[in-house]
C-alpha cells in the first residue's frame, strides 16, 4: 500500500514539473529558443507573489491575479527588447544571453531578498487532505495537478481554436512567409513569451506554496522542466505532462528507497529514456 501511495504522490508531483515545463515548451515550440533563465524566472515569480502577499496582505491565490499581468508584461518586454535580438541561425547568442540573464536574475534576487529561504503563507485549505479510498491525498498536490491539466488544455485550445494560435503556428512553421500575411513575428514572439511567463507565474505560486524557495533554486527547476520536455518529446504538451510524471514518480520512489537518492533517481530516469527513446516518448517536431 505504501508503494501505491508513493507512486500516486509521484504522479501528483509530476503535475508541478509539467507546470514548470509548459512555458519552456511553449517558447521552444514557437521560436526554437531555449530559455536557460526559465527556472530563475519561476523563482522571480515566487518572490513577486511573496511581495504582493506581504505588502498588500492578499491571500496567495488572489496575489496571483495581480502577478499575472505583471509577469505577462515582463515577458513581453524581455522578448521584444532583449531575446528577439538573439534569434537567428547561430545558436550561441540565445544560449549565452539567457545564461547571462539567469546569473543576473539569481544575483539580483540574492541582493534583494538575501539567501534566506522563504515560503508563501499557507492556510487551512493548502494543508488539508482528502481521503480517496485508502489513500490520503493533499489538496495542494491535487490542485497543482489539476492546474497543470487546465494549463495544457488551455494552451491546446489557444493553439488550435484562436486566430492568435493560428499566428503562433504559422510563425513557428515559417516566420518569413507568415510576415507576408501581415503577421509581425517580433510581436508574436513577444506575446508567446508573455504567455509563457503567465504559466511561469502559476508554476511559481505552487512552488512557493508547496516548498521553501531561495534565489538559488532556479537552475534545478530548469533542469526538471527540461527533463520533462525531452522525455515527453519536443512539441507535445501532453507528452510534457507524462515526462513530468515520470520524473515525479522516479523521485518519490527513489526518495522512498533512500532520501539521498531522490534527485538522482529523477535524473537517471531521464537518462534511461534518452537512451532508449532519444526523441522522447511522443515526438512531434522535427528539430
Amino acid at each position: 500500500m505504501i508503494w501505491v501511495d508513493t507512486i500516486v504522490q509521484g504522479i501528483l508531483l509530476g503535475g508541478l514539473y509539467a507546470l514548470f515545463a509548459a512555458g519552456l515548451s511553449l517558447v521552444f515550440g514557437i521560436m526554437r529558443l531555449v530559455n536557460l533563465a526559465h527556472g530563475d524566472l519561476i523563482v522571480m515569480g515566487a518572490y513577486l507573489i511573496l511581495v504582493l502577499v506581504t505588502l498588500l496582505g492578499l491571500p496567495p491565490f488572489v496575489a496571483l491575479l495581480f502577478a499575472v499581468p505583471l509577469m505577462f508584461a515582463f515577458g513581453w518586454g524581455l522578448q521584444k527588447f532583449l531575446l528577439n535580438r538573439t534569434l537567428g541561425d547561430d545558436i550561441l547568442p540565445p544560449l549565452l544571453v539567457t545564461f547571462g540573464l539567469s546569473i543576473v536574475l539569481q544575483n539580483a534576487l540574492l541582493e534583494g531578498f538575501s539567501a534566506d529561504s522563504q515560503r508563501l503563507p499557507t492556510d487551512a485549505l493548502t494543508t488539508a487532505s482528502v481521503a480517496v479510498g485508502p489513500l490520503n491525498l493533499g489538496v495542494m498536490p491535487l490542485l497543482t495537478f489539476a492546474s497543470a491539466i487546465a494549463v495544457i488544455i488551455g494552451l491546446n485550445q489557444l493553439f488550435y481554436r484562436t486566430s492568435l494560435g493560428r499566428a503562433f503556428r504559422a510563425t513557428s512553421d515559417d516566420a518569413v512567409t507568415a510576415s507576408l500575411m501581415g503577421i509581425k513575428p517580433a510581436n508574436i514572439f513577444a506575446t508567446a513569451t508573455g504567455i509563457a511567463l503567465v504559466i511561469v507565474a502559476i508554476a511559481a505560486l505552487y512552488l512557493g506554496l508547496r516548498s521553501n524557495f531561495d534565489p538559488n533554486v532556479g537552475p534545478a527547476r530548469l533542469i526538471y522542466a527540461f527533463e520533462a520536455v525531452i522525455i515527453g518529446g519536443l512539441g507535445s504538451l501532453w507528452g510534457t505532462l507524462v515526462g513530468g510524471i515520470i520524473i515525479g514518480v522516479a523521485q518519490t520512489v527513489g526518495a522512498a528507497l533512500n532520501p539521498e537518492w531522490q534527485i538522482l533517481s529523477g535524473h537517471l530516469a531521464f537518462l534511461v529514456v534518452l537512451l532508449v527513446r532519444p526523441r522522447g516518448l511522443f515526438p512531434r517536431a522535427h528539430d
Partner: protein
Amino acid sequence: MATYSVQTRTRASSGFAVFATLAIVLLILLPFFAGRSTIQDMFFILTMLVLAQFWNLLAGYGGLVSIGQQAFVGMGAYAMFGAVILLGVDPVPSILLAGVAALIIAVPTAFFAFRLQGAYFAIGTWVIAEVFRLLVAQWKTLGGGTGTSLPRSATREMWFTDAIKTLFDVKASAARDILAYWLALVLALATIGGIYWLLRTRRGLALAAVRDNTEAAKSIGVDAARMKWVVFLTSAFGTGLAGGLIYMQKVRISPDAAFSVTDWTAYVIFIVVIGGIGTIEGPILGVLIFFALQSLLADFGSWYLMTLGVLAIVIMLIAPRGLWGLISERTGAHLFPIRRRLTGGELDQLED
C-alpha cells in the same frame, strides 16, 4: 613568372612571438621576485585560462555549448584525491590520473549528450554533471556530501616541494603554491600551444569547416561526428587536468565546490564571451578582464556576478566576437594566426 604562397604568419604575430617569449621567461622566473599572494593570483588566472581555452575549443570551434564542464573539473579533482587517499600515489603524478578520469567519464557523457542538439545539448551536459555530483556525494570514503582534505603526510612529502623549499627558503605551504603555479604555467602554455597546433593542422581546418557549415563540410568528406568526439574528449581531458591541479592547490574538496556550475562553467563562459569566442586571444584577454573586475568588485558580493552577467549579455548583443573581435577587426591583428592567406604573385600587385 610570379609565384604564389600560402601564409598564416602576419607582421603582428611575428612581433608578438618575440614578446611572448620574453613574457614566458618572465613568468617562469616570477616566484623569484613576487610575493605569495601574487603567485596565488597568477595560479588562479592561469587555471581559469586553461578552463576557458578548453571551453572555447568546445563552443567556439566545435559549436558544442556545454554547461557541464564542472563534471570534468569535479571528477578530475576527485580522481586526484582518490589516487592520493586510497592508493597512496603522490599528488603531482595524480594530476595526470585526474585528466584520465575526466577522459573516461567523457565517453558516456558524450554518448548521452550527443543525442541532444544545440541548446538541449547544453542542458543535457548540465544534467549529467549533476548526476556525477550526486554520485560522488554518495562516495563515503572520500567524505560523502561534506568532502575531505588531502592527508598531511601526502602534502608534506609532495614531489619537488623540498627542493623548492630550500631554493626559495620558504615554508612548505608557500613552496606548494610555487609548485602549483609552475605546473599551472606549464599546463596553460601546453594548452595554448596544443590548441594552436591543432587548429593549424588538417584537423583544425576540418573543425573550422564543420563550425562554419556542417552540411558543406560533410559534403567534401569531413567526418563531422568524429570531429565532435575529438573536440569533446580533448577538452574533457584538459579540463580534468586543470581540476586535479586546482584541487591539489586547494587541498580541501567537497562535491558542491568541485562540481560548482558557477565557478567552473559560468565564470568560464563569461571569460570567453567577454574576451572573444572562437579565438585563442579572446580567453587570454577575457581572463585578465575577469580578474581585474573581480579585484575591483570583490567586496560587493552578488553585484560582481550581476555585472559579469550584464557585460556578457551586452557583448553578445553588440559585439558577438567579444573584445578581441573588436580589436582585431579594427587593427587586423592576429596574434595566433590560423587563417591561411594566399600571397605573392599577382596578388601583391593587386594590393598596391
